[in-house]
Structures are given as C-alpha cells and as structure tokens.
C-alpha cells in the first residue's frame, strides 16, 4: 500500500452523540455531542488508532491546524486517528462554564470507545496536548490505551490557573482594557454576578477552577500504557517539572526546540515538531 493510497481517504467529520445504555459511558446520559474527525487508511485496516486530544481554552484554537496536519500524516503512514473536540470548545456541544474535569475525562473515554468501535483490532494510542495531555494521563487505563504521548502535560494545575490569569492581565495591560473581556462574553451576566469567572476570556465555574487548581500530575498513578513526554519550547533542556513527571511515570522524554504550536496565531508547520511527533509513535 503506497503513501498516496493511504492519503486518498477523506477525513470523516461526525458528531459523537450521547452514548446508549450499552456503552461504558452510559453513566453520563447528559453528555453533549462531541465534534470529531476520523481519519483512516483506505483499506481501513489500521493496526494503531490515535485519539488526539487538543489543549483547552484559547490554546485549542491555535492547536487545531497542527493536530489536523498530524492526523493527516498518520494516515499517510497507515494509521488511523480520531481528533476529538472537548465539550465547550469549537463545534462540540456543552459549555465550559458547566463542565468539570470528570466531564472532559469522560469525553476522552467516549472518544477512545468510538475509536475502538471503528477499528476493533487496532491498538489505542492516546495523545494529548497541555491540559488535554494531563486528562489523557488520568483517562489512560479506563480508555484501554497501549501508548500514551503527552505533549507538554500540565504538571501543576495551580500554575496553569496562574498562567491563565497572567495572560489575561497582560492582554489587558497591552490593550488598556479594564473589564472589556467580561462585558464581551456571552456569559457576561453570570460573570458579573460572580457565578462564573472570566479567565483569559473563558468563563469558568468556581468548581472547575478549583478542580484545575488542585490538579497535580505527580499524584497520579502511573498508567499501564507506555508513556512518552514531549517538551516543545525554546528550552533545550527538559524543565525540572517535566523531569519529575517523567521519573514518576517512568516515561521516555523528547525535547523539541520549536515554537509551541498551541500559542501561535499564524499557521505554520514546523517540521521538527512533526518529526518528533511521528517518531514518538514508531
């Protein structure tokens, strides 16, 4: 089978609907539809299927193109993928303001079940970015993942919340905004009432903010899946936090000196990033 034949199968977007009583995720009957994109080789005989979990909030928008391109390249080498959009993001249903970490973890498990249904004989590989990576770590065993690829996983949720607040302050500082973000939000009334908090332009409930703040990947149980951590940044050495996490999870690591694709507004495909991502799965 040539690369050209693998790549001829068009991507299949679909909505993953609320699970029925026969699926493991039936305990979440109110789960919203999740927008997904399935890619499989023409012969539909993939030995591996990747469940790709993007980062969250503003980072999800920036990461979309890179993850789609990664999925296309996986298809070119005969591997299937399911790129899932978490609830409250993009075209998926639900709202971030109503979501919890358990909801997003359940979304990943649902996506993995769907990938298994479409490719019953394939091994499941979970690949997540930033908070998506941390949630993949938490969902790895229940998803039946054989491999876990974590791109810049969030080690400390407290640091993530602080970073989100800092970004908001910096944007306000540069644009001389005071409370413009809150007023522009569709959840403005709830933000102003204190029910939701505007963090970097996203309205989070206090519950979700507290859950994220309490995240500590160093407290998670190492999964059964073989694990790899990728750092993509300007640093040429693995950060101390990721070193600790790698030791805790007995994970392999890879440092890629490149712009983090989840922060870039312009479309650009850094081949060093793709080389590292594709190498991670070999």
């Amino acid at each position, binding site marked *: 089978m040539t690369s050209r034949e693998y790549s001829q199968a068009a991507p299949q977007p679909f909505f993953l609907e609320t699970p029925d009583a026969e699926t493991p995720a039936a305990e979440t009957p109110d789960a919203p539809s999740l927008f997904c994109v399935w890619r499989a080789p023409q012969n539909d005989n993939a030995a591996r299927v990747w469940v790709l979990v993007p980062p969250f909030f503003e980072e999800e928008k920036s990461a979309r193109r890179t993850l789609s391109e990664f999925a296309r390249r996986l298809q070119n080498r005969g591997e299937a993928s399911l790129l899932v959009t978490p609830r409250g993001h993009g075209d998926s249903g639900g709202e971030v303001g109503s979501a919890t970490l358990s909801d997003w973890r359940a979304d990943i498990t649902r996506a993995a079940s769907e990938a298994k249904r479409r490719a019953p004989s394939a091994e499941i590989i979970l690949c997540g970015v930033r908070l998506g990576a941390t949630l993949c770590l938490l969902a790895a065993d229940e998803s039946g993942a054989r491999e876990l690829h974590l791109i810049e996983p969030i080690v400390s949720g407290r640091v993530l919340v602080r*970073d989100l607040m*800092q*970004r908001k*302050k*910096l*944007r306000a*500082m*540069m644009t001389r905004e005071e409370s413009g973000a809150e007023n522009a939000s569709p959840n403005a009334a709830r933000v102003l009432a204190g029910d939701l908090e505007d963090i970097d332009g996203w309205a989070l409930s206090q519950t979700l903010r507290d859950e994220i703040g309490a995240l500590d990947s160093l407290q998670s149980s190492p999964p059964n899946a073989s694990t790899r951590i990728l750092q993509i940044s*300007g*640093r040429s050495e693995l*950060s101390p936090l990721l070193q600790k996490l790698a030791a805790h999870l007995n994970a392999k690591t890879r440092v890629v000196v490149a*712009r983090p694709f989840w*922060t*870039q*507004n312009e479309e650009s495909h850094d081949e060093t990033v793709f080389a590292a991502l594709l190498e991670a799965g070999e």
Partner: protein
Amino acid sequence: MDDELKMRIKRMIVERLFLDVTPREIADDAPLMETYGIDSVALFELVVGLEEEFDLQLEDTDFQIDTFKSVDSIATFLHAKGAV
C-alpha cells in the same frame, strides 16, 4: 555586572521568543514590543522566561507596560525585585 545581567536577559528573550537576531544585536534601550512585534502571547513567554531564569514570581502590581519596555527597564525591575 549590569552588562552581564543585560546579556542574560537578551539571551533569554532571543531563546524564548525565537527571535532571528543574536543577543548582542538587541540594543539595551530598544523598545521591545515595537522593534520585535511582541504581542500578548510573546509577552507571556517573556514573563515566564523571566520567572524561570531569575527564580521569581511576578505579583499583580508588577504587570505594568513600562516594566517590559526594554532590556534596560527589565534590568531595573529585576534589581528592584531583588532578583539579582
């Protein structure tokens, strides 16, 4: 001593922001945002870089546009914070 500090700042800026210049090419008083097209995303990377390079945590009151105006202003800020 101050030259060393400013070079350290410049190296961090070039590395974190993937600038296509050498640290030496950054003038001490060059307006960073205008000269290098720094947006809020890049500014955030700069803040994280400063915190990691100089082992400090910025407070709410530290987020003033003039702080990050140039290498000179960043060096002044670091001295004021006792980070060097």
